[in-house]
């Protein structure tokens, strides 16, 4: 098994908010290897986007990393000087955002921006950058790349914009591509096409991909390994087949059971998890899922759960799972 390209080790992050702090990530450890697609699943507020932005070092000004490291090829990027980190971004690690409209500047053409994105590519003329950009647009499936180069972002459809955003992210041949909800703003038909495209590109470029999404169908379709997050922690990590066919953590089970796409027989009443996420500024003493968990015991409510290894690449953060 190859080395991890990007790894997050015991990362804890909190946001300063008026009247206290919010513990958005707590002891998160994850790794993605070359040629692998890692999915990060979970509901809103569980810290998936915070984790994605920490991986590329694009946190908000009120974020504060209290412990841990983010390592790219074994080197802790959080300890690098600002200018060095900036050089890595886009070149070694690139990101695709949920809303491609906000990822592009509205006042420049797509072509001009794709050329600009190659600013730290040394020894290449502007003309070469333009043709690299054009070729990349053709590669991501824009039928008329020359036309698209001259267009402003608002003149492209949502699907074309997301393709252009993927092209922008791949221009520098990054080692890691992070995609935060890449298909959420799109129709099912376009979602299927983007998923298909990411799969093709991954096979071609052999980069590591991290997909952050709440859509369990997209993860099943695309990922090799999945990390499920709940209230700022990774509660279960497993190869994709094992996660969907033998989920071990009670939250993973609950999440899978309430996806209407996974329920074969038509039903008027769908299962729901009930309850709500704990307040991240005032966490319960034990397991954060205990209040909503069907198998919680007194121990779960008082003692934080251990991370139980369940085999190669598998672990769950729970008192009640047996290895």
């Amino acid at each position, binding site marked *: 098994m190859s080395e991890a390209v990007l790894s997050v080790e015991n990362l804890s992050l909190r946001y300063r908010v008026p009247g206290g702090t919010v513990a958005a990530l707590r002891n998160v450890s994850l790794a993605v290897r070359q040629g692998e697609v890692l999915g990060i699943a979970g*509901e809103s507020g569980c810290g998936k986007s915070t984790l994605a932005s920490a991986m590329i070092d694009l946190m908000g000004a009120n974020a504060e990393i209290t412990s841990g490291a983010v390592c790219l090829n074994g080197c802790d990027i959080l300890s690098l000087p600002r200018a060095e980190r900036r050089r890595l971004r886009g070149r070694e690690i690139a990101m695709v955002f949920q809303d491609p409209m906000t990822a592009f500047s509205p006042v420049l053409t797509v072509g001009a921006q794709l050329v600009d994105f190659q600013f730290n590519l040394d020894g290449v003329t502007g003309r070469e950058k333009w043709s690299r950009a054009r070729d990349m647009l053709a590669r991501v499936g824009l039928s008329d790349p020359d036309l698209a180069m001259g267009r402003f972002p608002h003149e492209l459809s949502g699907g074309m914009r997301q393709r252009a955003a993927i092209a922008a992210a791949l221009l520098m041949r990054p080692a890691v591509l992070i995609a935060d909800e890449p298909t959420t703003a799109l129709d099912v038909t376009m979602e299927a096409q983007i998923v298909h495209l990411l799969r093709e590109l991954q096979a071609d470029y052999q980069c590591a991909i991290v997909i952050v999404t709440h859509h369990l169908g997209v993860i099943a379709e695309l990922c090799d390994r999945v990390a499920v997050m709940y209230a700022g922690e990774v509660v279960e990590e497993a190869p994709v087949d094992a996660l969907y066919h033998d989920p071990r953590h009670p939250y993973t089970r609950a999440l899978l059971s309430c996806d209407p*796409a996974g*329920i074969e027989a038509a039903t008027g009443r769908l299962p*729901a998890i009930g309850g709500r996420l704990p307040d991240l500024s005032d966490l319960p003493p034990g397991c954060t899922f205990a209040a909503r968990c069907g198998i919680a015991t007194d121990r779960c409510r008082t003692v934080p759960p251990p991370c139980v290894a369940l085999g190669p690449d598998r672990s769950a953060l729970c008192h009640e799972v047996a290895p």
Partner: protein
Amino acid sequence: MTALLSIRDVSVVLPTGGWFGGAAPLNILAGVTLDLMPGETLGLVGESGSGKTTLARAILGLQPISAGRVRFDGRDLIHSAGFKAIRPRTALMFQDATASLSPRMTVGDAVTEPFSIHGVAVRNHRDKAAELLAEVGLPPEMATRYPHELSGGQARRVGVARALALKPALVIADEPTAGLDVSVQAEILNLMADLKDRHGLSYLIITHNLALVRHVADRIAVLYLGRLVETGPTRAIFAEPRHPYTQSLIAAEPKPDPRKRRADLAIRGEIPSILRRPKGCEFHTRCPLAEDICRTTPPALKELGYGRSVRCHFTETTTEGGRHELEH
């Protein structure tokens, strides 16, 4: 049984202007005919740009229609003096629940606003607000909150309470669970199902989420470029979709099971611009079964019996064999 809502050949055409008046008008809806029975849930599905929201707005009189008629409970909805009397019996749940609430109104004011709009006397606004909030499973204290203090699911519940205030017969829900997490989505759908049973509501649910429509709708109608391409009972359509577009929509939905990964794409390309409607069958540009006739002659909506109809030249061949071809 007579239909609660009957839509006959409704078209919405917008002029596009142009300096010399020569620009082609925009045909947003092209002759849509649909019926909604009392107590029924109809799911309206299609990609963005297929005219789903325009149809909802046309039904509520928020969008002038160019041709056709909409009848509600046997009465003409539009151009009629009775519109004001019909209006409180229909309600719309907006797509963006938080944005549909006024940021300067408390939840209590928002849910009782329909009474003042329609001049319905309410003895005690606070009690009425608490009653409506209880109906959607929110505590009475919620009445003093402002929209920005609500979570997505709570805002959605307030939207439901507001829609229910005047005891409507028909509720149109535009993407009722867009942007919600799966567990919250299930809670909202269950709430809508409970309210339907309790008040005998009819729903028109507009969504592009097929997984959702499969569980909540009795019948579905599929729109493509403002034209109805297939309608029928939900179960029958999911068991055997007849139109190639419906087939590819169903096949495009990612399954939450890594063992059911698709080897190939079900559908390529994007919905064409309404400014350049394809000739003949509008779906031919993306259809895997298209032949010459599809490029020249628009197909008619064919009745298949059992409440099903489909708009395709190859209705007979797009059964099992056609679907097989699409999947491989």
